[in-house]
């Protein structure tokens, strides 16, 4: 049987290694994955983790997997992936480097595995130190009768101008309060524009783009923009005619600007 195994795997497996592997198999369910198995195997080398022989470890692990196979124990995929990779690593470490081959050398791969093992072991060590600390509710205690902080809740109410306007609009759109129902949605009339601008030009001391006189709500929908722009422009011309404002445009299609005409 031992000979068979030897031939089958083509690996040198010492009796001790096989026994180790067997011992692990019994408890395979208790392992937290392949790194855990590797750490446990590494411990049997009885050396500092930093000095561990990755080659030997790979061998030990492969023996473990072989053993599981002969015992018809199915290992999770992770364990098999690790086995395949360690077999690959082993060949890399044993064979002279192939100059054609790209990627990290066997030594680099082995070094990273050693790092992973050392790091996992370090995490386990500090986890144990952490759990051994004085702990709240076990070694030190919080106040037994906490006094509740009375929350005095003060509610303030608020509303925005928009809320206010919407509320008013809602009321006014009800029934008899709809005197403006004839207005067409997308038409901003010349009268409207004139009325609006008369109120505003007092502030136009500086050259201002006339498009800034387009009222809010008329600057999104294209039909409304067109209507509002046309009527605002017409109203501006009207105001020029009245001698109240000046208009200018630096070139064709440039913004048309407006300024209050100072009284002489």
């Amino acid at each position: 049987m031992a000979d068979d195994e030897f031939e089958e795997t083509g690996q040198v497996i010492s009796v001790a290694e096989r026994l180790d592997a067997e011992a692990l198999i019994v408890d395979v369910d208790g392992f937290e994955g392949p790194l855990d198995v590797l750490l446990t195997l590494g411990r049997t080398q009885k050396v500092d983790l930093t000095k561990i022989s990755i080659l030997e470890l790979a061998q030990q692990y492969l023996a473990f997997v072989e053993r599981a196979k002969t015992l018809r124990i199915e290992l999770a995929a992770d364990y098999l992936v690790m086995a395949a990779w360690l077999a690959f690593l082993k060949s890399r470490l044993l064979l002279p480097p192939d100059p054609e081959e790209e990627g990290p050398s066997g030594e680099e791969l082995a070094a990273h595995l050693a790092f992973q093992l050392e790091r996992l072991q370090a995490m386990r060590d500090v986890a144990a130190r952490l759990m051994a600390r004085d702990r709240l509710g076990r070694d030190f205690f919080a106040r037994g009768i906490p006094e509740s902080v009375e929350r005095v809740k003060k509610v303030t109410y608020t509303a925005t101008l928009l809320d206010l306007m919407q509320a008013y609009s809602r009321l006014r759109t009800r029934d008899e309060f709809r005197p403006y129902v004839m207005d067409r949605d997308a038409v901003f009339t010349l009268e409207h524009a004139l009325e609006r601008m008369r109120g505003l030009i007092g502030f136009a001391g500086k050259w201002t783009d006339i498009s800034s006189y387009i009222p809010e709500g008329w600057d999104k929908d294209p039909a409304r923009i067109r209507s509002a722009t046309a009527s605002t422009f017409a109203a501006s011309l009207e105001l020029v005619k009245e001698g109240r404002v000046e208009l200018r445009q630096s070139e064709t299609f440039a913004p048309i600007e407006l300024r209050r005409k100072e009284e002489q």
Partner: protein
Amino acid sequence: MSEDTQETDLEAGQEESLFEAPPIGEQERMVEAILFASAEPVSVKELNGRMPHGADAAEALVHLRKRYDGRGVRVVKVGDAWAMRTAPDLSFLMQKETVETRKLSRAAIETLAIIAYHQPITRAEIEEIRGVSVSRGTVDQLLEMEWIRFGRRKMTPGRPVTFVVTQDFLDHFGLESARDLPGLKELRSAGLLDNRPPPSAMPALGEGDEDAGEESAEGQSELFED
């Protein structure tokens, strides 16, 4: 404040014989820790039971009590047991005021809007515009927020009081005066008056008394748009 010379020999005390009581300073620490952590007042008997052999909780309590005299925490007797409590004069610290901001109710905002647009206005007039009665609570809330106040009485029969908006109201909404409120036309051009439900949704949608209003508004606009 360095009253406790006892404390220095603490460590030594612990290492000494099991049958010798710990120094009184140490006993005081023990009572302090037990009272602090206990969920209930603890009797002297129980204290002694929990403390090392030979300890005298009653004496330790005398010291502990003195130590906390005038502090933010006191050692108090509750029945025949002992507990630690925050000093009563600091009870105000056990309150935490939080301010929660809520949106004004629909009734309140509508009432407020009507007052703002029509001030000075009587309650009856508000009700006429809203089409529903205005609850006392709504008006009181707005008065309390100091967004409205009483204006002059109307020179009409019964001389009803009127409501007007306040400076606080103007400040809150960023208005110079109530006249700066956008007019109906502006509301319309801002798209605020276009909130009509689609014609297909015509029969009885919406809530309560509003329904009727909206429906007829719709009927009207359809008439005109045709």
